[in-house]
């Protein structure tokens, strides 16, 4: 109660009065609908944030209000009423189904196909909170102990804002500035949580870090914000997401991920995104507007993005690398699969600034049903990027005859010594290939899954092993109903 009173006081000091009747609601776990300065103050107060963070959010909000939603992507985005959404809701397990019996059987069928154990199914379906699954204190302690021994910081970003303000002030917004784009500004104003990772100089992170194991956080929320800093000669591999479709009532997601790699450091960031794509008639589904960017600040630093995107009704996402360091390396490996009425506009930006910087882009787009799948990528060589190199390969695979595949590469070279290669193919699963598999007794669905996984192989092999196996099954499941 004392804490609540304190929060009210903080709010009173900050806002003077509550236009939206917050006083009575302060104990509630939900802010009222709508987006305004008061809501932002409420979020900041709920998160127990320092004043400078609130200022930062408010500035971002002011910037966002002056911006327009981008319309250059090949996406048909229905108008979004930002005042008709909730921006803060504390995680409550009681909101979820009481047991797996109450969960959509379709969801359970998918879990089963992915081979997910019951305990994890409960977590994913929202029956229990994450810490109830990993409730064994020893697991958590061993995990934290091991990281602490190595000097690695891995915690929710809200905790980092309180505990490591200097790091946050230095790096947050340094790769994706608040005003970078409409959705990054929105995220900066209202982000509720996300991960913070700091790898000290010379440390090779002793385990793969996964949002899955960030046990003290129950709900990453719709406006996730992640910051990863790898100091000189350090290494970290970070896994985001999960192959299983997660129960999620938020329609709009706008995440921001920032990576900073110093001299000789390497960050490997892998994502499997499988949010609700909407039904087979295109009803419902998540809108996913993500800004992911990494800065290779130091010489010989390396950032590698690997993504398998099969979910969401709309995906707008371009994980990018700013290759500042001499001989720095950027990589982007992507599988984007769309089915039914899904739309994806995804790709990358490789900005070559440092001398001898190199980048590789391997993009595999699969369209099925009536979906539209677009690769959009920029390779920019700045004047100082002597001997920069890029290799891009964009392959599209069409399943059926009502879907679309589009490739939009932008290439800007301002240094004549640069070497840029771009290869692109578009193909269909041939009737010959299907019949060959069928004749061996393999069902049509399994055959399509085999052929599509073969098509994605170069990207799949970049995923950490245990992730790759699930991702392969996921590809098959996401294509269900696309043939026959």
């Amino acid at each position: 109660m004392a804490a609540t009173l304190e929060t009210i006081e903080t709010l009173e000091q900050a806002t003077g009065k509550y236009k939206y009747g917050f006083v009575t609601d302060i104990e509630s776990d939900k802010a009222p609908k709508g987006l305004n300065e008061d809501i932002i103050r409420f979020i900041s107060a709920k998160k127990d944030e320092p004043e400078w963070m609130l200022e930062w959010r408010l500035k971002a909000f002011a910037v966002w209000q002056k911006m327009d939603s981008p319309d250059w992507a090949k996406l048909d985005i229905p108008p979004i009423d930002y005042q008709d959404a909730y921006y803060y809701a504390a995680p409550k397990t009681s909101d979820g189904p009481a047991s797996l019996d109450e969960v959509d059987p379709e969801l359970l069928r998918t879990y089963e196909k992915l081979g997910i154990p019951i305990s994890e199914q409960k977590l994913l379906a929202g029956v229990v909170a994450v810490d109830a699954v990993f409730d064994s204190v020893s697991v958590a302690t061993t995990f934290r102990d091991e990281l602490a021994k190595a000097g690695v910081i891995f915690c929710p970003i809200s905790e980092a804002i309180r505990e490591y303000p200097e790091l946050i002030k230095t790096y947050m917004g340094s790769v994706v500035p608040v005003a970078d784009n409409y959705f990054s500004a929105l995220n900066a104003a209202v982000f509720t949580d996300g991960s913070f990772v700091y790898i000290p100089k010379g440390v090779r992170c002793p385990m793969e870090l996964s949002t899955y194991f960030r046990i003290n956080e129950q709900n990453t929320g719709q406006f996730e914000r992640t910051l990863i800093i790898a100091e000189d000669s350090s290494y970290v591999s970070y896994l985001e997401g999960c192959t299983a479709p997660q129960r999620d009532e938020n329609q709009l997601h706008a995440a921001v991920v920032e990576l900073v790699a110093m001299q000789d450091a390497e960050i490997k960031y892998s994502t499997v995104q499988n949010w609700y794509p909407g039904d087979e008639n295109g009803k419902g589904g998540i809108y996913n507007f993500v800004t992911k960017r990494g800065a290779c600040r130091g010489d010989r630093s390396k950032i590698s993005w690997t993504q398998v995107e099969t979910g969401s009704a709309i995906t707008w996402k371009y994980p990018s690398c700013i290759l500042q360091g001499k001989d720095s390396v950027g990589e982007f490996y992507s599988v984007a699969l769309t089915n039914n009425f899904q739309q994806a506009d995804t790709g990358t930006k490789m900005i070559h600034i440092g001398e001898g910087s190199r980048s590789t882009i391997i993009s595999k787009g699969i369209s099925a049903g009536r979906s539209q799948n677009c690769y959009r990528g920029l390779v920019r060589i700045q004047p100082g990027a002597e001997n920069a190199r890029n290799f891009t390969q964009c392959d599209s695979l069409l399943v059926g005859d009502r879907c679309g595949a589009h490739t939009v590469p932008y290439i800007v070279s301002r240094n004549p010594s640069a070497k840029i290669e771009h290869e692109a193919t578009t193909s269909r699963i041939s009737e010959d290939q299907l019949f060959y598999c069928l004749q061996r007794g393999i069902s049509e669905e399994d055959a399509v899954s085999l052929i599509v996984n073969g098509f994605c192989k170069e990207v799949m092999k970049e995923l950490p092993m245990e992730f790759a196996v699930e991702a392969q099954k996921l590809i098959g499941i996401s294509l269900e109903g696309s043939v026959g």
Partner: protein
Amino acid sequence: MTPLLEIKDLHASVGDTPILKGINLTINHGEIHAIMGPNGSGKSTMSYVLSGRDGYEVTGGDVLMNGQSILEMEADERARAGMFLAFQYPVELPGVAGMSFLRAAVNARRLDKGEDEIDQLEFVKMVRAKAKDLSIDDEMLKRAVNVGFSGGEKKRYEILQMALLEPQLAVLDETDSGLDVDALKIVSEGVNMLRDANRSMLVITHYQRLLNHIVPDYVHILANGKIRRSGGKELALEVEESGYAGIDDAA
């Protein structure tokens, strides 16, 4: 005993063009039948109609396997029921690891029979043993299905699949095409090792030379969509000498 395969007055079209015009053929368990015929006689169409490929429409007659009609069955169901087609032109599957493909095929059959999926180690051992007989090395097994294989390698790979899937009926569609003498020998030896009282084969070929290696019990001459003559293995030699000319009239 019920014959393994009975083809009764089979008519089939591709688009609006009738290709098979009343085929009658009975294959008993353990028999090897050869179908010979000039180009365009309907040999490949017959292999596709039997295996259930889309686009090959049966317009009359019936095909029974072990006494039951298979015409309503999908291609994959027929395959799991024991029908195997060795392709004239095996298809490349880029990125699809050979071992995964072979295992998917073997498991599809096992699951259909209510058996468990095959143990990974046991499977690898089995494939290696059978591959050795066909001079297929580990390196080739690691590659994507048929990608970058020479003509001979592709045909050996077909026979390897046949050995793994142990079909009741194997249809070999022009398995000799594109093979030099040495490759033909390896492939034929592979096929002969699979001869067995419970396995029948339908060997489709344009030339007699394959039948020197895979010796058939019966030879049928297919021309213009019908079997015009049937006989023993000596019929193949006769065709080799006098050609297909005049066969039509002999019907």
